[in-house]
């Protein structure tokens, strides 16, 4: 399969890249890892006249932790996230997500920023970042701004980014004491999109009640879904079996799946219930100091 012809641009600075995007408008697509864009171009589902490759822009990769935030450069490869000792030890939800995105070869090119900016509701990082209450940093010709992840996904394959903006960084609140997370995904085979997946993040008070909770759902709606009613049901309570069951029921209610080859609406909705239960139990065990 051969993509339609396009003009290739390889800017070497953010200013150059955003000026290009401002000039080219909707005719341009940003190329980061290319693992979603290139397949779409080969299928001619996308035929952008201009492709702006941002891989030559310095400073967009790397993972670092400060007192209050974990910063992930937008061009950080999924395999770098997976191999980061910091992520593995302190951010189990991110680590587990990075392990189940596509396959190991795709993860060598696919980027964290691309996974978000592509805004495919079947992508895995969106639900994870919703559960973690992350922010993304957008750079445009007029400077940078932060966008809370909760207002980033505006529709299927649509985001709050302006056509001349580039996602340059993801900011995850630093892991708190007594916190833990888990990502539980059901896929038919390695490399397939999720039939459904659930990201859960919990932080407990010294007394053991749920102080902070995030639950994100993958591929059961037109956008990634934050299961807010399920979160609210847990907040301030002990996450015992009954509370987890109730939250899982509410998460299933928040799902808006459609029937496809991966299953019926009823099946997927119940799958969300089961996966939410598992994700919350695993997150809780980790918040309590287990693995």
């Amino acid at each position, binding site marked *: *399969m051969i993509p339609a012809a396009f003009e*290739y641009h390889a800017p070497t600075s953010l200013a150059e890249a955003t000026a290009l995007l401002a000039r080219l408008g909707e005719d341009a697509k940003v190329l980061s890892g290319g693992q979603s864009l290139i397949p779409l171009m080969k299928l001619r589902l996308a035929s952008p006249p201009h492709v702006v490759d941002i891989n030559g822009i310095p400073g967009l990769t790397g993972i670092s932790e400060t007192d209050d935030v974990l910063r992930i450069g937008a061009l950080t490869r999924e395999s770098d996230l997976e191999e980061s000792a910091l992520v593995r030890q302190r951010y189990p939800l991110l680590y587990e997500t990075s392990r189940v995105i596509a396959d*190991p*070869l795709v993860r060598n090119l696919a980027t964290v920023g691309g996974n978000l900016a592509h805004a495919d509701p079947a992508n895995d990082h969106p639900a994870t970042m919703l559960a973690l209450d992350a922010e993304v940093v957008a750079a445009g010709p007029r400077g940078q701004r932060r966008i809370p992840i909760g207002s980033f996904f505006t529709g299927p394959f649509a985001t709050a980014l302006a056509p001349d903006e580039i996602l340059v960084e993801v900011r995850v609140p630093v892991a708190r004491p007594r916190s833990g997370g888990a990502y539980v995904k059901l896929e038919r085979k*390695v*490399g397939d999109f999720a039939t459904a997946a659930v990201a859960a993040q919990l932080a407990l008070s010294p007394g053991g009640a749920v102080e902070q909770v995030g639950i994100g759902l993958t591929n059961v709606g037109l956008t990634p879904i934050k299961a807010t009613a399920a979160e609210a049901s847990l907040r301030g309570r002990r996450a015992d079996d009954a509370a987890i069951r109730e939250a899982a029921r509410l998460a299933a209610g928040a799902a808006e799946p459609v029937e496809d080859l991966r299953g019926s609406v009823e099946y997927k909705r119940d799958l969300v219930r089961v996966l939410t239960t598992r994700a919350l139990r695993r997150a809780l065990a980790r918040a309590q100091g287990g693995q």
Partner: protein
Amino acid sequence: MRVQLTVNGEKHEADVEPRLLLVHFVREVLRLTGTHIGCDTTHCGACTVLMDGRPVKSCTVFTVQASGKSLMTVEGLEQDGTLHPLQESFMSEHGLQCGYCTPGMLMTGYAFLQKNPKPTEDDIRWAISGNLCRCTGYVNIVKAVQRAAATLQ
């Protein structure tokens, strides 16, 4: 567009259309046909090559993205007429049946053993999970990687 890249240690320069996929450049411009095109949809891994040491699916990379980088294809494994121990172990363990997936399996296995010289069976199965063998010959592929790991110790 002008591209310059190193392939199996040799420098190459060419004029390419931006839309030329890396696998087509390797096979049709450089005539290195060891790299296969399987599914052409980023699933099967038959087209795996190493780009700056990392295995990637060359059907999902534009040649222009590889400019300035170093590539290794399956032809780069053999040195001075001697097969790489991984190639030897694919022979001795019958790690191939039809052979279509083999170049990709070799490149993924080669990069993996450099990073993880003492892998468990699970590690190997995880590492090759982006390479499909339609003959389902995975048992012997895993054995071949294990044997190569032992030989390379």
